[in-house]
């Protein structure tokens, strides 16, 4: 049966959608159709592909506006009369037809500090428990199709953000190394916040939605990285402390936040999540992300699936004791921005 396709053809100077009527057989995917076009009407139609099995992440394209892998998009998911429009990834500059210049991603990869092997552990002596490697293994499933990078609205139509923003692919790389049981660096979160532009992300979860490997990019990588970075950098108490103490006092007494964090860490049962402060921005206010949220108001820092109050035996955090060095005043507004 013949089906109608529109395929974008052109190069950096411009281009247009071209119409094709192509024979489609049972059980075929969009990439099969592109191959048929190459073998018949359009031998020079440019398109990347390799494994044709959803394992290499080469054939990324936009199909009816959705970022997809051509090899994983079954023709049976469209209705018979539907026109199928195939365009190149929009976030990256076009080279030709469906092929885009994805060097942005390779540059960001280079800027992400590599795994730091633990000092004094010989090859063959690495010991890790399965449960501890599994969190990082989830992120290592990434096939680098860059669909998450393409769909991320921080850079999708904002060329100007590209320099300061590494994108979801490299947030999961940072998270992977942060959670690696033997990685020697302890500054993965700070790096994500300070150098990768993690703060640009306002958790719309578009990246998670398009991931062909179903990696929970937002929930399992970005949010944990954000929240704990928030602990350190934007903790309202620290802000207050910064206002009260002079810089030299802060430095001589050691940074307040690390003392707090260290204390909490020591008392926290291993494997449990640390207490998490709300995801506030540099101005101390919550991002307005409720447009994308299932319910009105600021998102719960504990996730949307918890009912309060929690039974006390399920509480995984310790209430911080009141700090006598701080004046007993109202904490700065954190949750009030939406009211």
């Amino acid at each position, binding site marked *: 049966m013949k089906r109608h396709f529109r395929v974008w053809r052109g190069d950096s100077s411009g281009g247009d959608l071209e119409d094709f009527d192509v024979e489609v057989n049972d059980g075929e995917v969009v990439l099969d159709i592109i191959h048929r076009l190459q073998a018949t009407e359009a031998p*020079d139609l440019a398109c990347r592909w390799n494994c044709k099995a959803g394992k290499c992440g080469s054939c990324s394209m936009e199909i009816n506006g959705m970022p997809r892998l051509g090899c994983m998009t079954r023709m049976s998911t469209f209705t018979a009369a539907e026109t199928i429009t195939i365009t190149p990834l929009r976030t990256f500059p076009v080279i030709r037809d469906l092929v885009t210049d994805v060097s942005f991603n390779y540059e960001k990869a280079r800027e992400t500090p590599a795994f730091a092997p633990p000092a004094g552990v010989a090859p063959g002596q690495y010991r890790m428990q399965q449960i501890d490697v599994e969190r990082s293994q989830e992120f290592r499933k990434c096939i680098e199709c860059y669909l998450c990078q393409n769909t991320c609205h921080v850079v999708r139509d904002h060329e100007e953000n590209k320099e300061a923003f590494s994108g979801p692919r490299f947030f999961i790389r940072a998270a992977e190394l942060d959670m690696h049981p033997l990685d020697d660096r302890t500054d993965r979160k700070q790096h994500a916040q300070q150098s990768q532009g993690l703060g640009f992300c306002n958790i719309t979860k578009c990246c998670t939605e398009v991931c062909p490997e179903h990696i929970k990019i937002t929930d399992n990588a970005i949010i944990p990285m954000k929240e704990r970075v928030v602990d350190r950098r934007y903790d309202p108490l620290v802000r207050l402390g910064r206002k009260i103490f002079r810089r030299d006092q802060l430095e001589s007494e050691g940074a307040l936040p690390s003392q707090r964090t260290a204390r909490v860490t020591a008392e926290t049962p291993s494997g449990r999540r640390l207490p998490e402060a709300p995801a506030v921005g540099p101005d101390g206010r919550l991002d307005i992300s409720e447009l994308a949220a299932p319910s009105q108001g600021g998102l719960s820092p504990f996730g949307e699936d918890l009912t309060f109050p929690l039974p006390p035996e399920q509480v995984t955090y310790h209430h911080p004791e009141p700090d006598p060095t701080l004046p007993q005043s109202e904490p700065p507004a954190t949750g009030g921005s939406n009211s």
Partner: protein
Amino acid sequence: MTTTTERQLYDVVVIGAGGAGLRAAIEARLAGKRTAIISKSLFGKAHTVMAEGGAAAAMGNVNSRDNWMVHFRDTMRGGKFLNNFRMAELHAKEAPERIWELETYGALFDRTKDGKISQRNFGGHEYPRLAHVGDRTGLELIRTLQQKIVSLQQEDFAETGSYDSRIRVFQETTITELLLDGDRIAGAFGYYRDSGDFVVFEAPAVVLATGGVGRSYKVTSNSWEYTGDGHALALRSGATLINMEFLQFHPTGMVWPPSVKGILVTESVRGDGGVLRNSEGKRFMFDYVPDVFRKQYAETEEEADRWYTDPDNNRRPPELLPRDEVARAINSEVKAGRGSPAGGVFLDVSTRLPAEQIIKRLPSMHHQFKELADVDITKEPMEVGPTCHYVMGGVEVDPDSGAAFGSVQGLFAAGEVSGGMHGSNRLGGNSLSDLLVFGKRAGEHAAAYVETLAKRPTPSRVDLAAATEVALAPLVRGEGENPYRLQQDLQAVMGDLVGIIRREGELSDALKRLHELRVRVANVAVGGDRRYNPGWHLALDLRNMLIVSECTAKAALEREESRGGHTREDFPKMSAEWRRINLVCSLDEAGEVHLERKPVPTLRPELLDLFERSELAKYMTDEELGAE
């Protein structure tokens, strides 16, 4: 359109960015050589990502009785004793180190209870031996090596201010010709895919790591890149290929839906309990256990089923026979009319394990079938059949250094493109460890070779001009044959006539047709310009596919026996006389394939002593055994 050619100067040029290429490049860079990596695809997209099962290394983490000698024995048995014994020995000895090294690069393998690297069972391996990450081990390997290269680039950046100062990746770049200075390698000529501009890499040493030849076949698990480029480049520069008749047809490739025909279903489906049945529902593998394996394999379904939980007291199920035996059995069942609707057989794991176990053990398999075919492997059986998967033959190399034999100097090869290591058949899991062990060796020796040179060889201008002309010909020609059509015709010849089961008449016919195709390929023409033009790329690849296919057909016709990945219907027995012979292809002045017989190197006595005499008697002549 420009005809200027960019010049790049390097010490070592590695062609191919799969596991072997990346590992070689790391080693060359660590040896202080300026290294270029040339990749036909994007960096990190290599075909290595398709390897699912794992990397075989006798670390003994799961069964402490495992050691390099057992691994060596298994490899030789799998290759039916045609292996280059020295390669098999080095491989078995060095594989564990190469795997452990990956952990220092950041790899995260699945773990045992005591925190070591977990190892799984696989066809042909006596003990659980495959280091793995679920069923995406190849991806883990590529990503790890890719990230190690990035980390080296970061070190260079810190020191020199440039990421590319000592190791640079040229992605989407294809090499079409090697350049010589007399008999010495002087560089490589190619084009950037995106612009179509030509580039010449001047370098005294080249490492070939281009993988295999599967795209010459109709049904294959290989990606478009597997066009035998390295094999052809080696031949044209004066190197030799050995045993090109041995191609591995993976017994279980997807047969349905048609769009993914050829994509393979990992052997661990069978290792974890999957069984093969024909259309009558019979578990037919019990009928196909060859005599040499009779002692190690179960004779009843009951015993076979007990093995999964108690491997020490039961013999293994016949589904875990070496893959050529399984492929042949499936082929026989289908030919006897007991195949599945789509021309394969049924591989069933759904009735053998609970759904959550299947998803846990085979996550990407489950995912792949669900997404690609809408088949739920926890609920229904898969339809599988043989698919062209791996070429055992390849560039004839010195086992220790990976240096190519023949007249050329400065050429090295590692991974699938090299030959000898796997003999007539490769065990699952041995390719990932192969490319690490010999990738490292090739990189190391390429760097050492550069040290020995008093001056850099220089490529001749004439060769450069000729290479440019050949590369431009399909575009200049205007009218001529369609490259896609030619590829289909080539695939049909190889698939139908030089496939899994071979006969003399068909092979002679194939050679005749390949000659006809050669004339047509010389007349291939493409439209469009040089910028990212897949038609042009294919037109240039065809030349390589054709010459390598000819080597395969010629060697297949010559070898009058059945062994490993070469099955002759007219010579169904394995012959001890033929075991002593390697078939070696070279190109003569006129560009014709020349085939000669060379003796297989004799095993050193201490390695021979690892086997029982009764076992050797199945493979070797009385003369060889008497000589002991």
